[in-house]
């Protein structure tokens, strides 16, 4: 990140920067609530995508294993929360018990996917992971018989919001003269989790494990000859990435209050991969930026396409939903054409692409 924030010899500048970002993040939900509560919700979903993208970045960006079924772990986390905190099975555990369980189960699924695919790379791995993601979704769709575990396509409703000592994240509250709606409370919680996961990512990248992943991504045989246990480290990447997805899934479940297999379709996996690739594989700041952009741009388009058409042509010509995805796709194509290594590429990725260029 040195090349973007060159504040060498001026540490106070960095701290002022951090403080400013902190203030902006702290007042952001209240500013957004002025525009409309839906924008706070959109921001919350954007942060959930940040969590997902950071989790996938461990698998794809750090270890170089292309995973097209990542949303399955999100689903595992979400269903774990839904089953343990809803009237469906009539279990109501507190969230701070379920989230670690969800992360653990997701990690288990991660290792389960990793184990049979250890020898696969690139395209072949992508196909297997894609199939895995679909298998999980189809299971969720059909595990309503013979024992009704997931309630099939109807999904699970009335999921408990996060609660802590009588403080509920789901309800409206007035506190020191400020109005805290449910989404605003979740916003702060999501922000804390996101910062924690960013911290874990940064620490991982510069750790012995991070360097081993880098070696595996570069040359697996050479990595083994250096004494790196490639099997365990690849499994660890899958499990760790999956556990982040599991945490995000649990939060999604609580925020939504309702989940069904429809939330975990292939397009979602592709979306998360796009965030990682477009932002800059392996670069944490890039991945966060990618997730935020791909979450907000479609929403901004949703609110601008219709008025823009009316202003230009006086009437609606094309359905906003159609043109929105069209513009979104175009934006993706353009970014990848002009910045193939991502918006904020990692140093190593930039080198790889520079070398391949004619």
């Amino acid at each position: 990140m040195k090349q973007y924030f060159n504040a060498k010899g001026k540490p106070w500048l960095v701290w002022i920067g951090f403080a400013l970002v902190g203030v902006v993040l702290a007042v952001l939900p209240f500013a957004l609530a002025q525009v409309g509560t839906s924008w706070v919700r959109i921001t919350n979903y954007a942060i959930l995508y940040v969590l997902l993208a950071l989790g996938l970045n461990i698998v794809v960006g750090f270890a170089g294993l292309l995973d097209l079924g990542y949303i399955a772990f999100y689903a595992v986390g979400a269903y774990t929360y839904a089953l343990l905190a809803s009237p469906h099975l009539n279990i109501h555990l507190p969230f701070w018990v379920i989230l670690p369980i969800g992360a653990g189960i997701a990690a288990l699924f991660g290792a389960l996917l990793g184990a049979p695919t250890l020898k696969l790379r690139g395209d072949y791995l992508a196909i297997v992971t894609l199939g895995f993601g679909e298998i999980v979704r189809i299971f969720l769709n059909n595990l309503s018989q013979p024992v009704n575990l997931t309630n099939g396509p109807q999904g699970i409703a009335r999921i408990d919001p996060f609660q802590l000592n009588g403080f509920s994240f789901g309800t409206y509250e007035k506190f020191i003269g400020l109005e805290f709606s449910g989404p605003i409370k979740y916003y702060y919680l999501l922000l804390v989790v996101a910062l924690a996961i960013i911290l874990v990512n940064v620490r991982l990248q510069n750790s012995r494990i991070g360097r081993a992943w880098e070696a595996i991504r570069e040359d697996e045989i050479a990595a083994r000859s250096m004494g790196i246990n490639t099997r365990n480290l690849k499994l660890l990447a899958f499990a760790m990435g999956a556990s982040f997805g599991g945490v995000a899934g649990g939060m999604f479940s609580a925020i939504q209050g309702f989940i069904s297999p429809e939330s975990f379709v292939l397009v979602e996996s592709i979306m998360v991969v796009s965030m990682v690739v477009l932002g800059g594989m392996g670069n944490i700041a890039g991945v966060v930026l990618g997730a935020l952009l791909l979450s907000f741009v479609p929403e901004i388009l949703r609110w601008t396409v219709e008025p823009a058409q009316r202003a230009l042509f006086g009437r609606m010509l094309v359905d906003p939903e159609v043109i929105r995805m069209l513009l979104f796709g175009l934006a993706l194509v353009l970014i990848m054409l002009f910045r193939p290594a991502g918006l904020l590429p990692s140093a190593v990725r930039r080198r790889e692409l520079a070398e391949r260029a004619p």
Partner: protein
Amino acid sequence: MLLDVKHLEVHYRGIAAVKGIDLAVAAGELVCLIGANGAGKTSTLKAICRLIPSQASAMAYAGRDIRRSAVHELPRTGLVMVPEGRGIFAQLTVQENLAMGAYARGGGDPESQYAAFPRLKERRHQIAGTLSGGEQQMLAIARALMGEPKLLLLDEPSMGLAPMMVEKIFEIVRDIAARGVTILLVEQNARLALQAASRGYVMESGSIALAGSARELLDDRRVKEAYLGEARSA
């Protein structure tokens, strides 16, 4: 014996590449394994560091059976290989490559290699993939040395290098041996390998055809004809 291999066999889908060879390296020796293309030299080396499956009646390194060891366990015990085609991390810098070499022993300072490899010191922040072939080979060797090997396995260090560079690499190999590191060197350049080594094995289509001291092999008529390119004396 630091390395003791008995009746090693390597098969690729039923085709025998190595047909039951015996091979031993004592501590402090520089032993070379020479032979033509496809004689089974590289397969032998890969089998010893467990990169490919093999059968053997015995395969001991430093007194312990390594027939069931995993590839990644060996560097920690001091058995380090410089792979064929160098296997450097092309997108990482020279310094990052060197640091990776010390992974098995929990990390080390790349500075320790720069005295012996001034060329690498000059290029420490350069991307390894942009180095010349000879420099890449130096890097591969220096990276292996970062693991503080007791037994260094070198696979064709002269492959694809200019003659001047080949000389330089062999100089380095001799220096490493002089420092007390035991080396098993696989080489097609038989003359240079035998001149550097104390003992040698000659492999022919999967078997050991000849074995002996390097001096004897250099003087051997068959070796001269087949590998040193000397015309049959009248």
